[in-house]
């Protein structure tokens, strides 16, 4: 194995003089007193390897010895990851001792002594390849497939496989043989280098279904596809994290991986505290049972922050290969980009815009490309839907991370400062935001079939109303309330109706926080009906009191369980208010 010696230290960038071959992204360990600090090679020049250390380098000295591992940064995959809290390098945070994170303490992501009920799927004599299902174990309520390791590149014949029964993850559950007769004993554990995508699938079709998030402004106006990608840029405090948390609670996915990347520790603590208590609205089980949290908060080492999103994505790919519907939420991918910038600046590389590395757009787009809907080799389907938060510097969307992400992600949910300031949460701007999927024919067909005939037209109709309302509002602001025709006021109030009743959603209300698609369809139909109704007004001053009452009743409906007696009571009230002025 190659060895080296520390030559220089600038913050967490360490120059290592090496005595043999090293490769890009190779992991090495720096000896420091009685501990070892993990680092990754990020550039090689002559016999100097530039490494980024995943820990504080305080006290490190030139002359410290370094051992290379001949491996890239990898995750350890197997049953037992669900409900775990990992750091960016997949260390199990709960296994760490003491109050503080200790340098050089790396813990096992899996529980090697745990026992699992294994049921074989494949049988002796079967031909298998990477990603094929050998058997399964129940993990919480997921049918966790034990697969041929993704790193095994050949075709193999199963020589033996254990019968159903209880096994440790370290037990050999099958032996496979390659063409040359080499035998490989397989356990329930496998490893994968996080920076590479797992490609053990047949094909990746265009997404053709939507994924319900429970958030009306997304599902109704700009739906995201299952296996799709989206991102939420927004200035600080506009609601990116609240939105991600509420999607993580309500989205219809089998498994949620939350990557808290360079953000606040308290926000993660909130997940730790709430998820074991909160029910999954679809299954009634606890949310934590379908969740994996990867947290590398802003005060944790910067290099591990970059690693954290890859760790999260690799875990998603692993579960996708089991035929599951996985949702990955990353907050915030800007912090990951900033980690890249910090390193690139320390290496004195030629900077791109805003001092980010030149290849930032490529890095981001490669990452987003790992999401997607797949047909597995056995014909089953699996998906990773990915939604990333972006934190644009100065709230300016014309900055490199936002622009690069815009090229990579298909849904753009732009959080607006103005909406946040006026407490219109979620602050997704209905005019600037878009979902490319809404233009997909496959998705349109899916929506029209699964929600109601003509649904897509209705969605566009609602978007029109919002846009025309905004135009009318601008005119009113310029010309004054009585300087415009009455019709302008009516347009404005119709858009206000859709805005306040559909777009605005109270994430902290037990009922309103999540809307089923059935309910969303009902409400949109109801509102469009009101928008299509002609009302009688003498002067613009009559609109505000009338619409305030209409909106108020509709908002009360939002707070009631769908189709409950209360809900219907408000609906009846609504009807009588409407009757007052219906032409």
């Amino acid at each position, binding site marked *: 194995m190659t060895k080296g010696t520390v030559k220089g230290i600038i913050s967490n960038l360490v120059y290592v003089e090496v005595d043999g071959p090293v490769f890009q992204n190779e992991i090495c360990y720096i000896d420091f007193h009685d501990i070892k600090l993990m680092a990754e090679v990020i550039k090689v020049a002559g016999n100097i390897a530039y490494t980024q250390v995943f820990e504080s380098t305080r006290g490190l000295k030139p002359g410290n010895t370094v051992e290379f591992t001949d491996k890239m940064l990898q995750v350890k995959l197997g049953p037992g990851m669900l409900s775990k*809290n990992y750091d960016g390098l997949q260390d199990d945070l709960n296994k760490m001792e003491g*109050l503080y994170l200790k340098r050089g303490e790396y813990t096992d992501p899996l529980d090697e002594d745990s026992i699992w009920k294994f049921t074989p799927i494949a049988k002796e004599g079967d031909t298998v390849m990477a990603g094929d299902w050998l058997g399964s174990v129940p993990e919480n309520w997921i049918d966790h497939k034990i697969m041929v390791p993704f790193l095994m590149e050949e075709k193999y014949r199963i020589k033996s496989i254990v019968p159903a029964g209880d096994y440790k993850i370290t037990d050999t559950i099958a032996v496979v043989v390659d063409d040359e007769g080499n035998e490989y004993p397989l356990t329930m554990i496998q490893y994968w280098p996080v920076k590479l995508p797992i490609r053990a699938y047949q094909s990746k079709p265009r997404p053709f279904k939507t994924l319900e998030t429970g958030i009306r402004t997304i599902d109704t106006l700009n739906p995201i596809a299952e296996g799709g990608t989206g991102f939420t840029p927004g200035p600080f405090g506009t609601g990116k994290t609240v939105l991600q948390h509420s999607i993580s609670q309500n989205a219809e996915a089998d498994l949620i991986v939350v990557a808290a990347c360079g953000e606040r520790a308290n926000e993660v603590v909130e997940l730790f505290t709430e998820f074991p208590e909160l029910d999954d609205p679809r299954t009634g089980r606890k949310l934590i049972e379908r969740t994996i949290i990867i947290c590398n908060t802003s*005060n944790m080492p910067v290099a591990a922050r970059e690693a954290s999103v890859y760790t999260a994505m690799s875990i998603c790919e692993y579960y996708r290969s089991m035929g599951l519907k996985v949702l990955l939420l990353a907050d915030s991918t800007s912090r990951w980009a900033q980690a890249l910038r*910090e390193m690139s600046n320390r290496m004195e590389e030629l900077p791109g815009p805003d001092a980010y590395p030149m290849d930032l757009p490529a890095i981001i787009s490669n990452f987003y490309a790992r999401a997607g809907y797949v047909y597995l080799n056995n014909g089953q389907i699996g998906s990773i839907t990915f939604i990333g938060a972006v934190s644009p*510097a100065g709230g300016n969307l014309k900055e490199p991370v936002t622009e690069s992400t815009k090229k990579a992600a298909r849904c753009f949910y732009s959080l607006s400062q103005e909406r946040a300031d*006026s407490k219109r949460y979620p602050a997704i701007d209905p005019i600037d935001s878009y979902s490319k999927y809404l233009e997909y024919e496959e998705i349109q067909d899916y929506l029209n079939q699964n929600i109601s005939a003509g649904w897509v037209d209705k969605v566009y109709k609602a978007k029109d109303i919002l846009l025309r309302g905004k135009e009318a509002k601008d005119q009113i602001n310029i010309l004054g309330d009585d300087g415009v025709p009455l019709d302008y006021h009516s347009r404005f109030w119709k858009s206000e109706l859709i805005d306040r009743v559909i777009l605005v959603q109270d994430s902290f209300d037990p009922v309103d926080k999540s809307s089923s698609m059935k309910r969303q369809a009902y409400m949109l139909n109801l509102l469009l009906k009101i928008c299509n109704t002609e009302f009688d007004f003498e002067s613009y001053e009559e609109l505000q009191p009338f619409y305030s009452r209409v909106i108020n009743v509709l908002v009360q409906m939002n707070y009631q369980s769908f189709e409950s007696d209360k809900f219907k009571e408000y609906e009846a009230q609504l009807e009588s208010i409407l009757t007052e002025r219906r032409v």
Partner: protein
Amino acid sequence: MAGTAFQKIYTKLTQITKATCTVQATGVGNEELATVGGRLAQVVKIIDNKVTLQIFEGTEGIGTDAEVIFYGKPPTLKVSEQLAGRFFNAYGDPIDGGPEIEGEEVEIGGPSVNPVRRRDPSELIATGIAGIDLNNTLVTGQKIPFFADPDQPYNQVMATVALRTKADKIILGGMGLSNDDYLYYKNSFENAGVIDKIIAFINTTDDPPVERLLVPDMALSAAEYFAIQKNEAVLVLLTDMTLYCDALSIVSNRMDQIPSKDSMPGSLYSDLAKIYEKAVQFPTGGSITIIAVTTISGGDITHAIPDNTGYITEGQLYLRRDTDIGKVIIDPARSLSRLKTKVIGKRTRADHPQVMSASVRLNADAMNARTKLENGFDLTDYDQRALQFSRDYAEQILAIDVNVDTEEMLDKTWALFQKYFTPEEVGIKDEFMKLYWKKE
């Protein structure tokens, strides 16, 4: 914080900039402390035998033959109960004429708390100021700055807030504090008779700017001692973080780092996060709450300093002089405490969240009406009422000199709602309307 344990002496400086110098030396550790010509310095970069140090007092008069003595350890602070009631400089040396502190020597800027060992903050901090308690409730373990223009009375407001809270210890980290403000804090603490729960680390405008870089870590190391060892609720006041950032940029620019936005170092976010993330609630009851001041120029919050701060802290408070009432208020429109949702309606009356958002919304309507007025448009009846509401609201509830409990703030707000609006305009859930909207 100077030590004498194990020292190596070098005298060959190869480069000197305004804030840093480079010396040929071996066996030196990263972030190690040293003196250069008698001035404290810290290692920031090592390439082979070239060691770069940032010199806290600046490099004026430092010669290429200056004596460089390495201490073999990073900056430290001695912690014990003796810290209470004492004033120190940025190095942790007493400036109040009292004795040196005896206690355990800890490295400042130490490791992060394992997130799974934290507890979700849920203890409300009452201040009697409606701009905080009603609209932007603070919680122990929170970190939040005042975004203030340099001419606003932020130090006074912060001292008021600190004194009204029930913190066990108040730790003041002053960076580039004017001597007047320093004395103001000192006097307010003395007058309030709480000096024995104050600890201060002070860098004034008279002191060299780079020294400031030590202040937050000093203050927070002291805070960790009391929060962890003594399970105390510690409030840390950091003022002015903008001057701290300026010092950061001086050092990084001298080290030829490529500056990113507003000539701040690309690592500004991580640098600030390391400080603010020390705010924590422990399961054992100890906590560290950070209230900071970030001065902004011309209200520009897109500048890298307030921008990065906003992305790290849990909300921000804006001071505004309300010209209608001639008093300072905490601006309801732009201020935000992110952690308020953890306590309002749970630790306070159930109608609190709805009353808060309704009043903020109605107040925003008043702001729109004002814009209309300024643009020469006629006001509707609703606009007029919103304006009147907003004035009363500022005067009777928000003004910083009003000191009442949350229940009273809520009752007063309901009274104003009823005075100026219809139930529909207020738009609060029926269950609360039934309870608090008085029948005529």
